């Protein structure tokens, strides 16, 4: 329930990579799952951060933390040796395609965090990965080098053109779709809601499956408080979220009906037409 910081480093302005000693979480986590992390002395709720990588041998998990407010500033500012309250891994992760299948990952800003873990697992299983990464500026693009090193193809777009091409990740995806190469088994996306909507629409239009990881404010992270519910279960008026099959159903879920809770029913969902 408390983990100790092993390593913490800046990845760019306002972006930190934090490695934590959490052997059980490192064993259990699947890509797309998250942990709830203590927010420091000025905050009374824990905050969700995606597992962005694991080192099973050393029992470590990695968080990528974008500093946006008091809790993320505190988590990002932790130093090696400091303990931090944490529970997880939580939620339903992405479902992986058959071993060796090709997948695309589309990340906006720090939304790339869970996709790095996903891409690593996909590569481990021998799959080809193509990544489209975006952000407003170069500083916001996360994980390009790591993905390249893993052997994934990587395309980058920024709104101000300071890295990759000027524009949105959606444009990259569209071009790739138009390019006529081998289609992926699944398009995985995580980032701002507008981006998820655009990517999911394109993917569904192209007849591809699309899984997204969505965000909502959370308090418990385990399905107990109903704070993170999307009562309408929609990503957009025309797009619905569908629960992914999960290897571990939480106890007492009562059959999985009812409104969608991001923490327990997600954060990863399949997008389907509404």
């Amino acid at each position, binding site marked *: 329930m408390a983990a100790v910081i092993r390593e913490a480093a800046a990845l760019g302005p306002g972006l930190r990579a934090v490695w934590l000693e959490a052997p059980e979480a490192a064993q259990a986590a699947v890509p797309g799952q998250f942990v709830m992390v203590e927010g420091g002395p000025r905050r009374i709720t824990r905050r969700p951060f995606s597992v962005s990588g694991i080192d099973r041998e050393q029992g470590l998990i990695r968080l990528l933390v974008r500093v946006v407010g008091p809790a993320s500033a505190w988590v990002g500012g932790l130093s090696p040796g400091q303990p931090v*309250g944490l529970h997880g891994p939580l939620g339903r992760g992405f479902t992986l395609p058959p071993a060796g299948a090709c997948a695309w990952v589309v990340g906006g800003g720090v939304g790339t965090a869970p996709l790095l873990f996903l891409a690593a697992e996909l590569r481990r299983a021998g799959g080809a990965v193509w990544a489209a990464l975006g952000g407003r500026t170069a500083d916001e693009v996360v994980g390009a080098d790591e993905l390249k090193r893993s052997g994934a193809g990587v395309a980058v777009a920024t709104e101000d053109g300071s890295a990759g091409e000027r524009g949105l990740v959606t444009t990259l995806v569209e071009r790739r779709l138009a390019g006529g190469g081998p289609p992926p088994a699944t398009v995985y996306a995580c980032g701002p809601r507008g981006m998820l909507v655009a990517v999911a629409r394109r993917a569904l239009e192209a007849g591809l499956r699309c899984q997204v990881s969505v965000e909502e404010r959370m308090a*418990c992270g385990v399905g107990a408080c109903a704070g993170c519910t999307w*009562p309408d279960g929609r990503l957009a008026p025309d797009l619905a979220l569908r629960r992914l099959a999960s290897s571990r159903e939480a106890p*007492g879920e009562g059959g999985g009906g009812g409104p969608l809770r991001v923490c327990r029913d997600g954060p990863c969902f399949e997008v389907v037409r509404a």
Partner: protein
Amino acid sequence: MTGRRRAATGGVDLGVTAAGIRFPNPVLVASGTFGYGLDYTGIFDPGRLGGIIVKGTTLAPRAGNPAPRLCETPAGLLNAVGLENPGVEAVIAHHLPALAPLGLPVLVNIAGENEAEYEKLAERLTGQPGVRALEVNLSCPNVRKGGMAFGTDPAAVERLTRRLRKRTNLPLFVKLSPNVTDVVEIARAAEAGGADGLSLVNTLLGMAIEVETGRPALGNVTGGLSGPAIRPVAVRMVYQVAQAVKVPILGSGGISTSSDALEFLMAGASLVAVGTALFADPLSPLKIIAGLEEFCRDRGIRRVDRLTGVALPGRGGVAEACRG
């Protein structure tokens, strides 16, 4: 006899009997923060709690309010869940049976839009395995109808309590709103209507504005404020009500440490519920139980229930609990 013997040899009896129910210890979890009792199972064994108060349950399923439903404030949390719940039939079919094996006292928090709904809920839940009491939510600030509207009018509280009293033999804990001028008047009304206990407090009505946009931070505009921020208000209300009624009090509002729980007990509560503190640390209820035991042990207090009300006027403070 084991309990007695342990006490005699320095052990602390954490058990509390209130409204005819035996609680293994005085630390429950608050309605709406612990789901239907099993969501935290991967993190700790809920069987170690003093009891479980399940989510606010209505007759029909409710989807609740639009997102965002949460907003953190200094030492506080605003929530506007809006009583999302699967409805009493699903609770009876799925959730209560799953909870029964724990063998803990389960209190079901009920909320209706009118008196008839409360009555139906009480009838439906009576006799269900595992249900030991009803917590009658007259204080939810996040719904249009029912909820707090009932809880601010003493005549309505008394009448509803009296009607429920006739429909069920389950002990009734009436849960009061802190958003009132005179909580004592409402407490007396609930007692007069036949309440077996009082729960206080529910959340304070509050709101926050996102200054970047100039828009309310919650989808529902206003929400209920919980957490350490409200503790002084909650302790004051327990202290006032304890002087005015005879029925036991279940105190809540910002309890995060054993010291906080002690404040409520000393102010007159027999039981406490931990809510928002679960979000800072899911293990906090267990730490609070351990802390209460330690406090008593260190001072030679044999039974935790001896602490109830020691801070009230005319009582003897901690010294009183140490005697005998």
